[in-house]
Structures are given as structure tokens and as C-alpha cells.
């Protein structure tokens, strides 16, 4: 089975500091594989282990994305392409760049994370499915494959629904699908030596939106904090209105 997995590299958002103006300082932040991309890679590698085949990873990123590709290799990805040219979160552009590359080979299933942890847009799977003319199932917590058919279990509000879809298809995964493996030292070392295919992407970013401000939200809360055993009377009084 030929499996493609789409991997996103993000800045480590836990390490974002704010300047005096409450704006994020984004220079020199460490990069890492986005959290749901890890689950996507794990899901892809598990499918390979179960049904045999090959996993190819794609990152739309920059020249700095090779470290994330190596991480994917260490987790069991066989082959990887880094497409350079990423500038900003714009699902339309990301989808068209990735589609361009994905069209060059044949895949039975294309796996990605359902929402990335910077914007939580969750639009990529849908746009890609239109670009490539494939079926799409999102937020998967289980994938079973039999004879070019995938049974994908999707997590929704009050039930888990299993849908049958023909392959090739695009499946985005939820965090609950698996626990991403921690590669062993040997695998990490082997991954470091593996070649990475690097290509130049042709992103068509447009000036169609303009950022007016990007600031940490100011909390409108009262923030009255009691310490040393105090505050119980006050809080009880506030809650009395409920009764």
C-alpha cells in the first residue's frame, strides 16, 4: 500500500513570549513537528506495519524543515520530500502546493492531522480533496483497510460513526487515534543519514487579507485572588445568588 502523510512543522508555541505591547515575539523560536502531525505519522506507519507498503512524508516548509523530516524518518517514514516556500498559515496556498507534489505519484491513502495547533483551521483536508478529486473523512480515531476500501471511525459529539469510503481517499486524524511512538536512539541515528528530497514550491500567496493586530487577549476578568485561607466568605456570598 502506498501511504502519504502530510506533516506540519510549527514553532514551539509554548515558548512564545510577549513584548511590552503584548505582541508575540516570533524570532528564533525552536521548531517542532506539530502535535497532530505526530499522530498522523504514527497512523501512517501503523498502517504500513499492518498492511505492508511504503510511507512517504511531505512537509510544506522551509530549509529548516529537514529536522522535522528526520523525526518522521525515525518514527518509520520511508521517504520524504520537503517543499520549500512556506511563509504563513493559508490553507488554500498550502493545499495547492501539496496537491502539486502529491499528483506526481499514486497513493492509496493520504493522511494528515485534523487541525493544526496554531490556527485550528481544519480546512486543508477539504480543500485537498477537491484539488485531487478524492473522498475525504476527517477526525478519524480508527482506520481499517480491506480491498481498496477504508472503514474509518470518526469521532463526533455523542457517537463514534464508522463510514466506508473507497480508496484512494484523504483521512485526517484526531489525537485520540493513537499515541505517537518515541523513536529509539538507533532509529534516530539512522534517520539522520537518510536522504531528504528537497524541492522548490510555487506558493501563490496573495495580499488578500491584512493583519491589523496580533496581541495576547487581555483578560477582562476581575482577578480578585485570595490567599492564606481567606476568600471563602466572599466567594460564598457571590454564589448565594444561585440559590
Amino acid at each position, binding site marked *: 500500500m502506498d501511504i502519504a502523510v502530510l506533516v506540519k512543522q510549527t514553532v514551539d508555541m509554548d515558548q512564545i513570549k510577549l513584548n511590552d505591547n503584548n505582541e508575540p515575539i516570533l524570532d528564533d523560536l525552536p521548531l517542532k513537528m506539530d502535535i497532530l502531525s505526530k499522530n498522523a505519522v504514527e497512523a501512517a506507519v501503523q498502517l504500513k506495519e499492518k498492511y505492508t507498503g511504503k510511507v512517504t512524508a511531505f512537509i510544506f516548509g522551509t530549509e529548516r524543515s529537514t529536522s522535522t523530516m528526520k523525526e518522521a524518518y525515525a518514527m518509520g517514514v520511508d521517504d520524504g520530500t520537503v517543499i520549500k516556500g512556506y511563509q504563513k498559515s493559508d490553507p488554500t496556498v498550502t493545499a495547492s502546493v501539496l496537491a502539486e507534489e502529491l499528483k506526481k505519484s499514486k497513493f492509496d491513502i493520504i493522511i494528515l492531522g485534523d487541525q493544526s495547533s496554531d490556527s485550528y483551521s481544519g*480546512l486543508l483536508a477539504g480543500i485537498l480533496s477537491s484539488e485531487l478529486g478524492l473522498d475525504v473523512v476527517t477526525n478519524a480515531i480508527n482506520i481499517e483497510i480491506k480491498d481498496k476500501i477504508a472503514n474509518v471511525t470518526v469521532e463526533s459529539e455523542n*457517537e463514534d460513526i464508522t463510514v466506508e469510503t473507497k480508496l484512494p481517499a484523504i483521512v485526517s486524524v484526531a489525537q485520540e487515534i493513537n499515541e505517537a511512538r518515541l523513536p529509539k536512539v538507533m532509529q534516530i541515528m539512522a534517520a539522520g543519514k537518510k536522504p531528504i528530497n528537497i524541492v522548490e514550491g510555487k506558493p501563490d500567496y496573495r495580499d488578500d487579507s491584512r493583519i*491589523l493586530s496580533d496581541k495576547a487577549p487581555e483578560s477582562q476578568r476581575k482577578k480578585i485572588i485570595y490567599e492564606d485561607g481567606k476568600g471563602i466568605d466572599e466567594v460564598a456570598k457571590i454564589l448565594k445568588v444561585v440559590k
Partner: protein
Amino acid sequence: MKALVFSDEPKNAREIITYLRGKMDIDVISTEDKELPEYGAQKVYFYKDGFVDNLSKFLADHITKNKYDFVFISSTNTGRELAGILSYKLKMKCMPEIFSFEHGGKTVTKRFFHGGKTVVEEESDFQMFTVSASICEAEKTDKRSEIENINLDKSNYKIINVKGKNTAGTDIRNAKVIVSIGRGLGSEENIKKIQPLVDELHAEIAGSRPVCLDYKWLSEDKQVGLSGKKVRPDFYIALGISGQIQHIAGIRGSKTIIAINKDKSAPIFEECDYGIVGDLFTVVPELVKKLK
């Protein structure tokens, strides 16, 4: 101006209509719901058995035919899939996850970014948006909408199994008072130690992600946060919850937030109205005594 609102969840549709009402005329497409025609939309369309393929086909035709100025799609699984497909098909770029929309010449929207660390305010000519859940509290109007049932084509997708989850009945999104527990509670058995507070306040119990998803002390539908429910109670009482950004994302609509945590530097104290620094196992019983 005329807008189309789509949500597979009528509750979200009601909120989005309430939010946009007065700014423009609204048609809405959703699943069968008795109350939806009471929120001021001009036309309410109901569909059954919708999947991405038959829904996207219908919506693309419908949007083209009716020449809507704006399309608002609620951010659910189905909603996001559809927004992606429609944005490609109709060549309308989509601004995702907005929680604020103003239009005067240009459109100005707000959404969270950097994992919820910041809010970006953007100006654009975009016509399609996905709308973050709980954008406002839904309110009815006197105006009744015209209702039309739509027939979708048959889908290529096939449902082969549906497994109901262990849900405990009440929807925490409708609760007026929520007592929410975090990892600080320590164990499932300890729920009975805070139960008197829940009872005293006639509250619903909810929890953080680890509590609902990893430890399963509560069922999954009780999870509050970014990947759980967004709640808007009058009082949200957080017990032993650190207040990570993904949790805060679910409680921003609360009128009053009260936090009890033994760690003075817990981020929840930056996002609460009243906070008590202390051990919840001593503070909660004292609070219950005072409330009696």
C-alpha cells in the same frame, strides 16, 4: 446584504443567526430543529442524511444561485470539511475560526492564533468564514422563518456502524452553573468529596481534558475546552484546573469564573474573576458549609 449560515448542529446555527441578526438578512441550512425558525432567519432549510459529497454539491449550487454576500459555516467536523471543499469549488477564500465579524466597506474579523496565545484581527474581502462554536448566547425573536425541506442526492459514503458514547444525559453547554474538575482532584473517588458543592449549587459537573479523556473520571461529553465543549454558564467554578490555554478557550463565555487551586502561579488565576489559593479538599467543604 444577505448571508447563508450553515451548521449540521442546530444549536450552533441558532447562535450564529443571533450574532448576525440586524447586520444582514440571513438564510440558514441545518438539520431538523423545532426552534430554529424562531431566531429571525428569513428562510430555514432542513436536510437529512447529509455527507460532505451531497451537502457540498447542494451548497455550491445554492450559494451560486442565491448570490449570498457572505457564507458562515459553523466549525464542526462536517462544517470544516465543507468549508474547505466549497472554498475551492466556489473560489471563495475562507477565513477560519472567527469569533468576531464587523463589516463596513472591508470586513474585519478576529480569531485566535498561535494556539490561542494571541488574537489576530484581520481585514479582508473574504466572503466565507468558519465560525467558532459559542460565538454568542442564542436568543429568539418574534419573527418566524419560512421553512423548506431539501432533498439531497444520495451520498457515496456509507455508514456501517454507529456506536453511542457513554454520555450522561445533560448538555453542559446549557448549564447555568458548572463545577469543573481537573487533574488536581487526584482520583475518581474524590468526586464524592466535591459532590456536596455540585448539589448545593444545583450545578452540572464538567472537567478538563485529562479528566474526561485520559482518566475517564467523567464521560467525554463533559470535557470543556478547545477540543471539548465551549460553555457559557453564569458561574464556572474550576477546581484543581491549571488553566492551560486550551482549557481557557472553552470557558471564555462564562459570566463569572471562580478558581480554586493550590498553586498561586497557576495560569487560571489570570483568567478568573475570583480565585482562592488553597487545597481544594479544605476549601470546598468550608465553602459548602458557608453556602448552607
